[in-house]
């Protein structure tokens, strides 16, 4: 080795800054946010952060569109380009996913920025012991952690890189970059702080545990293929050299790391606890952007690296998809907390999207892309409504407190009912279109039993969605019923965007379906 260096054969690597500019912008603004925290006086921080974060996400979205419409990138029917010396792929599915993440992150940041019905959803001083004098001082002083904005930006940057990573090490780095800020954000709730800190702790421990599996899987795959590049692993797998035991065990462990992030059964344990404990805006961010990003990475790994091994991983993935759909729908029935209910609903939906992934075709990919975008909007909207129903202790999360909401706040209850119907997949909502698309792709891929299980669990799931609707509209409110606060423009915008997207994608899904199928037409770049 030293001989080659001495002889000067080393060529300087190159980075395609223009193709990576959306991610670079997000990371750069995250770093800038840290500087704001360091040097700007406390009262001016929030405004500057809002400009940086919302403006940055919007600008990154515009840049994503610019990259996606670049002629040179897709010249001669190229599927895309592998940038940064093979570390980052820039292709149409990735750009679609990144665009989706940026839009959803924008809406989530609107929720994070809400400050009308409390000072904020976030703690005054995360380090102060719950119930201590320090905490009271912080609350009375009306301060709040504005670090959430740079943290969110770091997480979003990691989410953008995660599905774009073309080698497993980059993917691992992206996974950590997206996870670490989220661990922190989970523990920053202003109310019910012990629950929040417990959630952060659980998420961190289990996340670290799954990262270890992921890393171990990478090591095994490296041992098999001699490379961490996804295309190199695919090439080695098809040339049938090396130990299949290494390959398959590596596949299983890398898959586990990814399935953990999407919350597939039996790696879902963290999801209800964390979704419940985390500040609701952060839950919205995790339920939309993180899921989209993790599915993006899952799709890339299983389509690119393990594309030839479909017959090996399909039975196991079938089992996981069935378990995820059924368990998510079943356990949700007996939940009494709105956020936990939505968490189990999110698990069930992960199962539905998995049926699209398993198809391993362009149709499956495009259906999954559409479902992710549609579901993201609906779920942010639903969590946004959760932040509005409050009692003196904060959000009124227990379902019994939601009884009779339709009689006192018909608009809020109606909007929530609409989101629930979308989750249930009622026609003329985006949920129906998305389910229809993934099930269609799964049937075309020969997974009829899977679709039957999917439809059955949809029916079970519909039961508890409708139960909540019945509870809201047909029972009498409790005497200590929570009040619905009037949202500021931020939360209103998030709710309205959720409703509009859910309606439009249900009634006129064609433009986005077309975009998704165009994005998926050439699959991923290798």
């Amino acid at each position, binding site marked *: 080795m030293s001989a080659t260096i001495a002889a000067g054969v080393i060529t300087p690597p190159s980075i395609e800054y223009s193709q990576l500019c959306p991610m670079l912008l997000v990371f750069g603004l995250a770093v800038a946010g840290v500087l704001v925290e360091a040097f700007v006086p406390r009262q001016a921080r929030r405004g500057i952060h809002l400009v940086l974060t919302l403006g940055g996400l919007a600008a990154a979205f515009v840049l994503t569109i610019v990259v996606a419409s670049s002629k040179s990138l897709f010249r001669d029917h190229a599927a895309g380009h592998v940038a940064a010396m093979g570390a980052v792929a820039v292709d149409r599915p990735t750009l679609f996913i990144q665009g989706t993440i940026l839009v959803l992150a924008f809406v989530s940041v609107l929720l994070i920025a809400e400050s009308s019905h409390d000072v904020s959803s976030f703690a005054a001083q995360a380090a102060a012991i719950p119930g201590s004098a320090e905490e009271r001082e912080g609350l009375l002083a009306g301060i709040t952690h504005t670090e959430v904005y740079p943290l969110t930006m770091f997480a979003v940057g990691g989410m953008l890189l995660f599905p774009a990573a073309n080698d497993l090490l980059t993917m691992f780095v992206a996974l950590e970059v997206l996870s670490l800020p989220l661990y922190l954000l989970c523990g920053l709730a202003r109310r019910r702080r012990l629950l929040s800190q417990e959630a952060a702790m659980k998420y961190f421990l289990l996340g670290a545990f799954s990262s270890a599996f992921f890393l171990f899987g990478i090591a095994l795959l490296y041992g098999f293929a001699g490379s961490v590049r996804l295309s190199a692993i695919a090439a080695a797998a098809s040339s049938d050299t090396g130990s*299949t035991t290494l390959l*398959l065990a590596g596949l*299983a462990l890398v898959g586990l790391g990814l399935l953990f992030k999407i919350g597939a059964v039996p*790696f879902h*344990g*963290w999801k209800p606890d964390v979704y419940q404990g985390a500040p609701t805006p952060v839950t919205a961010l995790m339920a939309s952007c993180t899921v989209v990003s993790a599915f993006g990475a899952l799709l890339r790994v299983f389509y690119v690296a393990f594309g030839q091994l479909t017959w090996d991983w399909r039975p196991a993935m079938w089992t996981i998809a069935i378990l995820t759909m059924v368990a998510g729908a*079943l356990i949700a029935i007996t939940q009494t907390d709105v956020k936990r209910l939505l968490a189990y609903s999110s698990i069930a939906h992960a199962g539905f999207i998995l049926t699209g992934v398993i198809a391993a075709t362009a149709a499956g990919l495009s259906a999954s892309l559409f479902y992710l975008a549609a579901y993201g909007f609906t779920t942010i909207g639903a969590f946004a409504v959760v932040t509005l129903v409050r009692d003196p202790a904060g959000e009124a999360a227990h379902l019994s407190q939601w009884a009779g909401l339709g009689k006192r706040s018909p608009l809020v209850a109606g909007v929530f009912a609409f989101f629930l119907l979308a989750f249930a997949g009622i026609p003329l909502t985006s949920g129906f279109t998305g389910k229809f698309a993934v099930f*269609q792709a799964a049937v075309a891929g020969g997974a009829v039993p899977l679709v039957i299980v999917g439809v059955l669990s949809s029916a079970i799931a519909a039961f508890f969605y409708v139960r909540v609707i019945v509870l809201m509209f047909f029972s009498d409110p409790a005497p200590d019923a929570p009040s619905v606060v009037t949202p500021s423009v931020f939360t209103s915008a998030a709710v309205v965007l959720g409703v509009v997207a859910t309606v439009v994608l249900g009634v006129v899904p064609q433009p986005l379906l077309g975009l998704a199928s165009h994005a998926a037409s050439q699959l991923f770049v290798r």
Partner: protein
Amino acid sequence: MTTVAATGVQHAAWLMLAFPLFGAVVLLLGGRRTDRWGHLLGVAAPLAAFGYGLACFFALLSYPAAGRSRDLHLFSWIPVGGFRVSIGMLMDPLSLSFVLLITGVGSLIHIYSVGYMAHDTDRRRFFGYLNLFIAAMLLLVLSDNYLGLYVGWEGVGLASYLLIGFWQFKPTAAVAAKKAFIANRVGDAGLSLAIMLMFATFGTVNFSGVFARAHEAGPGVMAALGLLLLLGACGKSAQLPLQSWLLDAMEGPTPVSALIHAATMVTAGVYLIVRSNVIFDLSSTARLGVQVVGAVTLLFGGIIACAKDDIKKSLAGSTMSQIGYMFLAAGLGPAGYGLAIGLLLAHGFFKANLFLGAGSVMHGMDDEVNMRRYGGLARLMPVTAATFGLAYLAIIGIPGFSGFFTKDPIIEAAFSKGGVSGALLGTAALIGAGLTAFYMTRMVLMTFFGKRRWEDQAAAAAAGAGQEGEAEAPHQQPHPHESPQVMLWPMILLAIGSVGAGAFLATGDRLVNFLAPVTRTPAAPPGIVGPYGLGALGLALVAVAAAWWMYGRREVPAVAPAGGVLVVAARKDLYGDAFNESVLMRPGQWLTRLSVYFDNRGVDGLVNTFAATVGGASGRLRKVQTGFVRSYALAMFFGAALLVGALLLVRL
């Protein structure tokens, strides 16, 4: 003939739908804020649609005859796999004829309603419903596929329900609205089954797609398709056996009766059959069904109309009868499609005119509907009487008026079908013409001529309780007066249409030739005057004389005389409701009781067991979620082990 994409002014044809829809949304969601100017917006919306419809119509005329079919693709709805439904609009001679009728006559009725509903506190809501109706009806006729048509069809049904029950504080109105809705559901079921059958057979519901592949299907499928469509048409058009709702639907405000139950909605069935002409041409069974339904209904409606004392119900019977004529014509195939549409358009004018005239009379008579309490109103309401008289001359087919040009050819065409069936159908149509002349003469004589029976307060009050329909006795003597200008002008315009529309449409077979691209040219274009047409005219004159003998020469008793078997039967709608009750409702009740029993014992048992199982499983599974990180980690670890094991096993 091929359909090409719409260009020019037709490129924005969706505006036609958008105007009334916008009006409906603003008026219904705007609430009381829009009360002050709501009716103006309500009138402007159909007028704008009419203007745009005219523009599209003239644009269509500028194309050569073979190219008069323009399609406007709006958007695709879920194009997944083989399931492709796109929402689009088809502009051809047939649909645009309907557009002009709906928006033209509709606008006049809107204007009339401004005056008619002036004293109603809910006038804005009324206009919102009217606009909703216009939008749905336009969607029905403009859609380029059966699914879009079905959406409009249901929208029309909804608007009709809302309008019939507009005065929902009257129990009779509420019940009538429900009855109309339910009777329509039966027909709608037929239409939806037809659409499903279409999709199963042809894989598409587009008009062009279905018609292009219609000959591939077997005769059985085509007959089923035709009969199911006929069932749908019967529901909407109040034809036997689904006729019973129309008479009760007269509970709605009179402009509604004019707009929905005379001029436009009830003609939707005729539109459906003429639009589906390719399907009916391929099945003689379905065609025969249409002919029989039409012939029977035209007699049925005529007989009912002869016996009713309620002016609106008599007109409703007349509507059934006239639409029977249209069905009969449409059932005759290419020879009759153009004739059916011709009568439909002319009927739109004169029947709307008659209804608005009846409304004007009621307006002046304190909402009295019993003709036996009218009489001698011609002097007091000269304009109403004159316009009503012109429409009267039109409907009974006096030469020179529009009924003569549009109805007599149908009688001719029925006879020229030939054979026993032709003779039977023709005879029915001929008798129908006589009946029409009789009941219309009776109506005119009882309303506008003779003694002023409303002056006999005591007699009317005493007899009031015994009467059918509105049982309330008037508390004071009515002061009949002419209606305001805003109500009179629509009637005058409609009267012009009643007089001239027939001649305009029939001269030189103008309408038949115009529609030919859609309905194809009949083998032998029917003449305007033929031997049977003259026979019909003669019969009509005899009936007029008979009516005068019975109601003009003698005094009309304020209380209906007992009458013969047929009269009693006709007063009871020829036992239509009794038939429905004994044949459909009673067995239906038995069926529902049986199914409730089965549902409680069988289905609910199953469902409850399943629900309990699911709930139990949920409760047990929930316990796995302990909240301890260690157990989650353990689950993950075992999951990992199983995953690795399973993957390795697959390769073994």
